[in-house]
């Protein structure tokens, strides 16, 4: 094995093969708006706590949020839309990807997901602007630094070691728990098999007490998520924009 140390290598041949398309189905008829998914996602992905003042200004960084829309009526008349858990839709034609000047937001060839590369992000926030679902969160301050926020010192013990802790100035968003995807893929590959449907799931799907969120391979027609997605109740958010999202919402049945 000889290495040619003279010529610098500038090409990159690391493009990966597609290993599986991941998708999600959210059943709005089952969702109770309990926000267990929000809590689970924050714990799994080291989503920072922003303090009271910043949260009041809309800077809460939850990767998934429960949207509630209602008409202005007097109690006891309550007219509400179904609860809408909104997370990164992992669009196939993601509008957030081409606008990043430094390739911090790229499309994954192996999982067909939208990736956010934290150490490349320079914080222009164009991707946040361009996301029609407004699901991207920005680190407005060093929310995770225990040196300037001493109350975090013991809270750091609950951080998930599989996930990077981000500092100020980078954009972040739901990754479909890609650390869990990779762990399962590695385990399956080392055992020489394909991933079974239901072997693992995302934090939000795992935590939901109503089983409203289903996650899995949508290129596998036998998976639970594929069966749930193809149905008369299924629709995509902001379909008219042509972003081809990977999250299907089921509504209108109840």
């Amino acid at each position, binding site marked *: 094995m000889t290495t040619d140390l003279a010529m610098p290598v*500038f*090409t*990159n041949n690391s493009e990966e093969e597609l290993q599986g398309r991941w998708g999600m189905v959210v059943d709005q008829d089952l969702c109770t708006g309990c926000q267990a998914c929000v809590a689970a996602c924050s714990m799994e992905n080291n989503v920072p706590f922003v303090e009271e003042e910043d949260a009041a200004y809309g800077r809460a960084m939850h990767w998934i949020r429960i949207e509630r829309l209602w008409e202005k009526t007097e109690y006891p008349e309550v007219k509400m839309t179904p609860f809408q858990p909104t997370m990164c839709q992992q669009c196939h034609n*993601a*509008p*957030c*990807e081409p606008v990043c000047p430094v390739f911090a937001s*790229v*499309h994954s060839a192996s999982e067909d997901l939208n990736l956010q590369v934290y150490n490349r992000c320079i914080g222009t926030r164009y991707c946040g602007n361009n996301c029609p679902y407004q699901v991207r969160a920005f680190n407005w301050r060093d929310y995770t630094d225990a040196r300037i926020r001493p109350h975090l010192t013991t809270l750091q013990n609950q951080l998930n070691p599989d996930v990077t802790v981000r500092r100020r100035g980078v954009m972040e968003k739901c990754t479909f728990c890609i650390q869990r995807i990779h762990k399962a893929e590695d385990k399956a590959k080392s055992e020489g098999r394909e991933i079974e449907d239901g072997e693992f799931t995302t934090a939000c799907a795992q935590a939901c007490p109503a089983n409203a969120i289903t996650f899995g391979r949508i290129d596998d027609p036998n998976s639970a998520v594929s069966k749930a997605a193809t149905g008369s109740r299924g629709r995509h958010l902001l379909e008219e924009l042509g972003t*081809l999202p990977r999250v299907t919402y089921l509504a209108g049945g109840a």
Partner: protein
Amino acid sequence: MSDSTMLLAVFDDLEPATHAIDKLHEMGVEDHQMNVISGIPFPGRVLGRPSALTNVSRIAMFGALLGMSLGIFLIYGTPALYPLHVGGQPVFPVPMGLIITFEMTMLGLMGLAFIGVFVDSGFPSYTPMEYVPEISDGKIAILFSCPSADQMNFVDALTKVGAESVAPAEARQL
């Protein structure tokens, strides 16, 4: 050659200067042996001389080609070196190619036009040169070489045409 001396004749206005140039032609001084130094640009036809030659346009065109190559490398070469997929857009996009190539071509054109001025004029040059400060006050000077023997003839002839002063040109620190 010690045979010829450089004289500097200073004129107050354009008219006497053009008469002087004619006189110098009469007295046998070739066009390439004289140079007109002035505070504003005078085209050759105003002075009665052939236009000065410049290489700036050629250098600028070469710069435009350099810029265009740089632009094409940036927009099509860099994705070839490290392709990354974004948002359903092609890896080798056409509209961006036009934009980036245009900007880089313009940068090359103007950048090398600027450098061309430096190169062609010998800027920066801080060695002593033949000059009088009155030139930037609007006077027109003619720097020419004549045979040393005839120096006095030239001085007389130009003074008669209206020169303010005719003296051997001395190279002075600008």
